[in-house]
């Protein structure tokens, strides 16, 4: 431990003395600064303080030194730990305070002027130097905490908890808090509650005119209406599909399971495109209806119907996945018991099966509701005049109004709704669950469904499955015909060539297609963020599943929270918070990576915790008693056993990074454009075919990535030959 303390103190000192303190303009990974080092932009803290008129940076040095002073005491001495904590926390506090206090235009906290004088020197965001110094301070704090005997005296765990908490505070809490602050301040940064109330109670938010025959309703009503409809309908359809698959003898029913993977690897607005192609003014169905029945084409699909249909298309498979778990978990012996007690099929369904289904139904409903609220792509493409909160937020930022304060207010509303749903789910569903899967073998046969019910199920699920297939067929087909939007079905490669042309010139390959830039950025960002998400998520899962410490519940809540924040809210909060020093990240590729890591991390945490609960804790302990430290134990024992969870997390975070649109659309820049943002742009320009072609390519890339991840991580080998089960897994 003393070596680590010395190492991190040295790292902090080195970074302070030599590394560029501020962010370099050509990005974190640009190394052009080496040429001019040390100039006014690339100097280290030491040079800034000495030669560039920034004396306040001297203030960081005492805290670095304090870490060294701790080494004067033996580890057992409480002062060793206490000094380290003081050095770490003090250093972090001071570094951030000076960063916030002195910004691009000099002193930002004008009330400090009488104390320290006016400062004109500008200061930009943190760069390598500051980042490493801050990280070293975090490590000093962790080592100090471990030295005092907390976290079982385990520096690895203390460090993991403290670093991940710090990161979550910085990249989940700080942006949200900044956004909240932005909502109650005016453009000069003064508190203005009256402005907040005016924004909050604006007519276009709460209006209920449409209920009494008026032209339109407020955005809250629209959002809730859409959410409830999507939630309810997707749940019912999900249940119908689940019942068909589990409880009927319909042939091909296993194939339905395969359909569930489609919405997961589809960018969210691709379905909207297919809907336009089918039902738009010049769509295939519209044309058919006009020719066959003389129904004139209209724009009915733009608005609630279109958004609802496309949300259902993507949400029903998810609800199906939830419900199939619930339906399968209902022990047949319960229904058999009911039947032996003389109940009819219908009575059994009504009194036994249905009540057991209810918690699952509520879960699926809430999931659908939240997903609908958070959905941005479909309302953007199909919404027309039907405003929902997520699109309204977007237009408040990027539209003609450009009113971040208003966007913040709308984002708060959306956040309240999703957090509310999240809270209900935790509180209410957490308690209301019936455990029907026991460790005992269960060999009963499920009761047959009543005949009428079966007929209803067939008549709803089969057409919908067909409709889903057609929608996806359109997506694939549309890329290869001249203009599917206008029903021009001549085969062409043009769209693919427009987007992905590669020319062979004498200087090698030239990627002249218009989509290459965004595709490359997307793949790069996804490929960088997926492993980071995995590491972060599984590390947090390990901490939560394997250690006990005060404040663990809060820590768990923090990590899961980012899941409940809609992408649009994240996007707004990020541009509000990270547009100014000291954390100045907008316009970089890094902000995209950070955004994905913290948005997708909860999935890694969940997957990891589920997997860890299957792995006997004594395996870790055995490794510890054999002299392996926690880091070694994690690497050599835990990770190999967690392979399935690692694959799941990597696939999920990669795929989500590739298909995400809501948060990303705020964060892309000309230099770092993402595929989804590019496609949305093409859609807005009316180039459906190109958008569709690009989407197909994205789906292909994701399928390829999934295969690569699975091959790369490999399977976990436990060799359960014969009937023995691995004794160590699961305890006995």
């Amino acid at each position, binding site marked *: 431990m003393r070596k680590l303390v010395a190492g991190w103190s040295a790292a902090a000192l080195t970074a302070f003395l030599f590394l560029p303190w501020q962010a370099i303009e050509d990005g974190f990974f640009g190394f052009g600064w080496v040429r001019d080092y040390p100039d006014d932009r690339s100097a280290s803290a030491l040079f800034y303080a000495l030669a560039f008129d920034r004396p306040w940076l001297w203030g960081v040095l005492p805290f670095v030194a304090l870490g060294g002073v701790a080494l004067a005491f033996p580890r057992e001495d409480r002062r060793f730990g206490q000094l380290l904590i003081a050095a770490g926390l003090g250093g972090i506090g001071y570094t951030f305070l000076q960063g916030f206090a002195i910004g691009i235009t000099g002193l930002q906290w004008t009330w400090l002027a009488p104390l320290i004088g006016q400062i004109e020197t500008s200061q930009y965001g943190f760069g390598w130097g500051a980042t490493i110094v801050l990280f070293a301070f975090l490590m000093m704090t962790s080592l100090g905490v471990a030295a005092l005997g907390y976290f079982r005296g385990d520096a690895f765990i203390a460090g993991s908890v403290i670093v991940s908490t710090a990161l979550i505070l910085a990249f989940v809490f700080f942006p949200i808090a900044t956004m909240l602050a932005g909502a109650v301040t005016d453009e000069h940064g003064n508190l203005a509650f009256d402005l907040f109330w005016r924004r909050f109670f604006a007519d276009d938010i709460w209006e209920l005119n449409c209920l009494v025959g008026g032209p339109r309703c407020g955005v809250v009503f629209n959002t809730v209406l859409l959410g409830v409809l999507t939630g309810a309908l997707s749940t019912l359809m999900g249940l119908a599909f689940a019942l068909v698959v589990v409880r009927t003898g319909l042939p091909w029913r296993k194939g339905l399971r395969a359909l569930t993977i489609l919405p997961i690897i589809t960018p969210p607005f691709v379905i909207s495109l297919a809907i336009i192609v089918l039902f738009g003014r010049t769509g295939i169905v519209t044309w058919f209806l006009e020719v066959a029945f003389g129904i004139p084409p209209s724009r009915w699909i733009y608005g609630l119907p279109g958004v609802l249909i496309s949300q259902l298309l993507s949400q029903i498979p998810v609800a199906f996945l939830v419900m199939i778990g619930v339906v399968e978990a209902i022990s047949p012996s319960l229904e058999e018991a009911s039947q032996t007690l003389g109940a009819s099929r219908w009575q059994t369904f009504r009194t036994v099966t249905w009540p057991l289904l209810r918690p699952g139904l509520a879960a699926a409903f809430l999931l659908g509701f939240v997903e609908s609220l958070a959905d941005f792509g479909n309302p953007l493409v199909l919404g027309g005049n039907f405003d929902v909160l997520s699109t309204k937020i977007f237009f408040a930022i990027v539209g003609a109004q450009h009113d971040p304060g208003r966007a913040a207010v709308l984002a708060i509303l959306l956040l309240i709704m999703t957090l509310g749903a999240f809270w209900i789910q935790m509180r209410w569903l957490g308690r209301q669950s019936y455990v029907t899967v026991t460790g005992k073998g269960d060999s009963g046969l499920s009761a047959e469904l009543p005949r009428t019910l079966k007929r209803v199920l067939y008549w709803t699920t089969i057409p919908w499955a067909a409709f889903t297939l057609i929608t996806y067929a359109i997506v694939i087909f549309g890329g290869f015909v001249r203009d599917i939007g206008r029903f021009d079905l001549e085969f062409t490669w043009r769209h693919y060539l427009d987007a992905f042309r590669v020319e062979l010139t004498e200087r090698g390959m030239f990627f002249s297609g218009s989509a290459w830039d965004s595709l490359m950025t997307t793949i790069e960002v996804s490929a960088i963020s997926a492993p980071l998400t995995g590491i972060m998520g599984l590390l947090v899962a390990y901490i939560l599943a394997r250690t006990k410490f005060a404040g663990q519940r809060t820590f768990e809540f923090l990590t899961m929270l980012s899941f409940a924040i809609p992408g649009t809210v994240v996007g707004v909060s990020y541009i509000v918070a990270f547009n100014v020093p000291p954390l100045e990240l907008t316009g970089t590729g890094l902000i995209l990576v950070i955004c994905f890591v913290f948005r997708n991390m909860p999935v890694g945490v969940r997957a990891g915790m589920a997997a860890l609960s299957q792995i006997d804790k004594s395996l870790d302990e*055995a490794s510890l*008693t054999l*002299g392996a*430290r926690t880091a070694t134990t994690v690497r050599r024992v835990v990770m190999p056993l967690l392979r399935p969870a690692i694959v799941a997390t990597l696939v999920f975070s990669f795929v989500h990074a590739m298909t995400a649109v809501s948060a990303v659309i705020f964060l892309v820049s000309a230099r770092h454009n993402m595929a989804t943002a590019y496609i949305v742009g093409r859609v807005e320009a009316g180039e459906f075919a190109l958008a569709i072609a690009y989407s197909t390519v994205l789906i292909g890339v994701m399928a390829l990535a999934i295969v690569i991840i699975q091959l790369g991580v490999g399977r976990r*080998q436990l060799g*359960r*030959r014969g009937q*023995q089960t*691995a*004794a160590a897994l699961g305890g006995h």
Partner: protein
Amino acid sequence: MTKSTTKKGPASVEFRNVTKRYGTVAAVSDVSFTIEPGTLVTLLGPSGCGKTTTLRLIAGLEIATEGQIRIAGEDVTNLSAADRDVSMVFQSYALFPHMNVLDNVAYGPTVAGQKKSDAYDLARQKLALVGLKDYDLRLPSELSGGQQQRVAVARALTMEPQVLLFDEPLSNLDAKLRRRVREDIRDLQRDLNLTVAYVTHDQQEALAVSDRVIVMSNARIAQMGAPRELYEAPASLFVADFMGDSNLIDATVERVSGDQALVKIGVTSLELPSRGTKPGPCKVSIRPESLSVTASVPQGPAIPGTIRKAAYLGTHMEYTLAAEIGELFVVDRDVANPKPVGSTAYLALARTGVSIVPST
């Protein structure tokens, strides 16, 4: 095999007023004891008594809330498991399911940075020691329970630890295998001169393998001592009851002279070690085999009673008798002449297995 395979020889383990609390609940409360180097000490008690927590405190898998833990005279209280020279055989064996036998056993030396070939040599040596050759490339799931356990022992031995810990090592084995494994562990401990702490809830197992036994109850030590001491002179009603069957009978101390006391049990009187009692009513523990049962009136003092229940167990008979001093449970080796239920029998007290239980 060399006499000692530990680097520094066996070490002592010392607990000084150790307490482990989870929130407000104490799992181990103010426990002090010393394990002498080269001895096998069992921690015995019912589930939830704190014995496993005590073992984990020695290993460093739990950190004491209060008090001091010393191994080989050095304070290790706040050292993590990886920093202590202790290894452990887990109840579930905790073999790494993704590694084969050899890799499992070589794990300790490997993570300590030894050369792979050296680690394998050491691992093979230890596997030979537990009698498990030619299984190197098997996965743990391909071994029987007994084999898995031997792998776990070999793996713990590669660390050549100053202290070796066993957490209920027999609980996953079938009854026949238990005796053999128990003897193997004891032989190994003696041959290698190891300091071993051994957790079990089975009093017979504890009596069979230990140099000393520490009986725990409700997070505290109820009694410690040699097996014979515990069985024949339990210090409390709990220990008397927990260490095998026992008849706990009300008796009267007539007089105390020195460390001997004259105790009146029903119609008979007996000289017993006084164990700090004063004249007056007391409790006496009588082991079932310390009562000999005869159909006719024996010589010397005897307690008459009526046989209420009789059971034939092959090697012995078990009787329940109603006597004046209470209901008595008796084990009788004489299976050839069973006494019928309802008949009158006479009970004579043996010299051993009868003791005053000090009131606590």
